[in-house]
């Protein structure tokens, strides 16, 4: 009974004065017990928190370890040179050249960035510098909502609307390829990049702008020469995050890229990237085969690329703090 009185109330319930008085009384009678118990809770809670933080790290390392261990088995039968530089991916024939996919991923990401970075920079400037307040308040949540739209839905729209559109524009029967995938990816990363850029532009102190206007600059000059350079590290961060998303995106790309292992040397040519190739092939492959190992190796490459990008983000942020 006494113990239950001393229970720490677990929500913001309002205690009647009588109850509170008794609880105070009983706790003041046994200060040591209460204090020890609270200290015990405190310590246990801290340990639980540390354990879960370590658990998160553990996941990363078990992923790295399992992917690496499975992937490295590829090189028992395939040479490094073949895997990275051969363009022949015919697993039925024991030919495991992943160059097509690596090249495809790089080309697709570059194309996506080429379209999306200038566009989202303009959108961010529009959002942060030019729109009236009511439009800002309406647009920002909507852009945030767009991030949440499932990638299959984008892929589906690309497949049913974009590709027929590209076909009629080019007048050929070809629509799928890295241009279609690049456009779909652009739509997907646009909200991410423009919102982070927008935030970093808003964070530029007003005095910078005032000083620039006082020197007689136009708005164009102020934005291009003062605001954007000042927000540089935030913009870089946004671009890298968008890139990471573009590299790792799977389902939207699968639906529009054509899934054929040939080199992406034209905009309208069915090709394949690392992610799409993994997801298309892995359900049909026995686990203990070189084919499977090669797919895991491709996953491992993706993993390494994304980790390298995060380290790059860290370095940029480090610089930003020093400024």
């Amino acid at each position, binding site marked *: 009974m006494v113990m239950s009185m001393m229970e720490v109330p677990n929500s913001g319930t309002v205690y009647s004065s009588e109850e509170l008085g008794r609880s105070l009384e009983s706790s003041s009678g046994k200060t040591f017990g209460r204090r020890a118990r609270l200290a015990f809770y405190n310590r246990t809670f801290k340990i639980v928190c540390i354990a879960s933080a370590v658990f998160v790290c553990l996941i990363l390392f078990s992923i790295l370890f399992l992917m690496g261990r499975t992937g490295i088995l590829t090189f028992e039968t395939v040479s490094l040179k073949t895997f990275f530089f051969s363009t022949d991916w015919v697993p039925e024939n024991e030919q495991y050249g992943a160059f097509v996919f690596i090249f495809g991923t790089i080309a697709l990401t570059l194309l996506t960035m080429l379209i999306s970075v200038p566009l989202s920079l*303009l959108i961010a400037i529009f959002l942060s510098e*030019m729109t009236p307040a009511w439009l800002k308040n309406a647009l920002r949540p909507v852009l945030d909502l767009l991030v949440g739209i499932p990638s*299959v839905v984008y892929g589906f729209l690309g497949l049913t609307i974009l590709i027929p559109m590209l076909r009629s524009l080019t007048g050929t029967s070809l629509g799928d390829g890295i241009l279609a995938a690049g456009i779909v990816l652009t739509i997907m990363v646009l909200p991410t990049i423009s919102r982070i850029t927008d935030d970093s532009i808003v964070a530029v102190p007003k005095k910078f702008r005032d000083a620039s206007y006082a020197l007689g600059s136009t708005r164009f*000059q102020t*934005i291009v020469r003062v605001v954007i350079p000042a927000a540089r590290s935030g913009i870089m961060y946004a671009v890298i995050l968008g890139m990471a998303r573009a590299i790792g995106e799977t389902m939207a790309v699968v639906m529009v890229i054509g899934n054929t292992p040939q080199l992406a040397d034209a905009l309208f040519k069915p090709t394949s990237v690392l992610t799409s190739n*993994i997801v298309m092939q892995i359900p049909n492959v026995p*686990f203990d085969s070189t084919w499977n190992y090669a797919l895991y190796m491709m996953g491992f490459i993706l993993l390494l690329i994304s980790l390298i990008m*995060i380290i790059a983000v860290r370095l940029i942020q480090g610089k930003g703090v020093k400024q």
Partner: protein
Amino acid sequence: MSAGKTTADHPFAARKSLNQFNNKLFTTVVWVVGICTVIFIIALLFLILEKGLPKLDWGFLYGEPSEIEEGGGVGPLLFNSFYVLIISLLISIPLGMASGIYLAEFAPANKFIGFIRICVEGLASVPSIIFGLFGIVLFVESLDMGLTILGAAVSLAFLNLPVLTRVTEEAIRAVPQEMKSASFALGSTHLQTIRRVLIPVALNGIITGICLVAGRAFGESAVIILTGGVTSSGVMWDFNPLSPGATLAVHLWYVQSEAIVPDAQLIAEKSAAVLVFIVLLINIVFRVPLWINSRKMR
């Protein structure tokens, strides 16, 4: 002043008009892009919802999927979507919040913690398909469970864990120091301070983060295809966590690319509308009260 009166003699006249022209051009371009974006976003949402929502009926939402005949529903898949989402949130919210609280409150600023932080950020940027491959190694190969709801849910939880950790950490860090000091001054322990002061104040940010994660998990498909498969058990209310775990998002891809049902296009359109509608709903239902709340507080 006197030199400015005759514009022809003004030494900067040419520059000035060029600058004005640039400025006007730039303003126009930005406005055009901005307005196009607004129109595009509205058109996009309208297009998805308009194609599918009017054709929806209970038979579709509740019915069992069919492989060959026309008129199949998505009942079990929709159920799986929620089931997987709830299991994954049950795993990831406590773990993610605990580690976020640790990083924000307890962690000393040393190299080890910096390392943990890099790990969390690194994990947050790992492509979702990698979690799918990891799920295969863990559940399908090591534990020999096959493609299951449970495997899909745990893999999804791993995917969401770092995001939740970061969101919690940032939300708790944003709580004003005075509130914390006041709580300590009243003699609370650290745990009491966290429970009664920090979490309630940071709840807005944390719930926004959970919405984000829930929407992402609801629409995630790459992980589920690899760990949950592309089929469901085919009956409603199948609570067995070891049955095949395809969700609505996976079904959308499946009918569009692999299935042979004649009305695949229609099913895909309706599924897309349902998916987007639910994701929007999750965000609106949870965020509107918070938004109203923060307006009142102001």
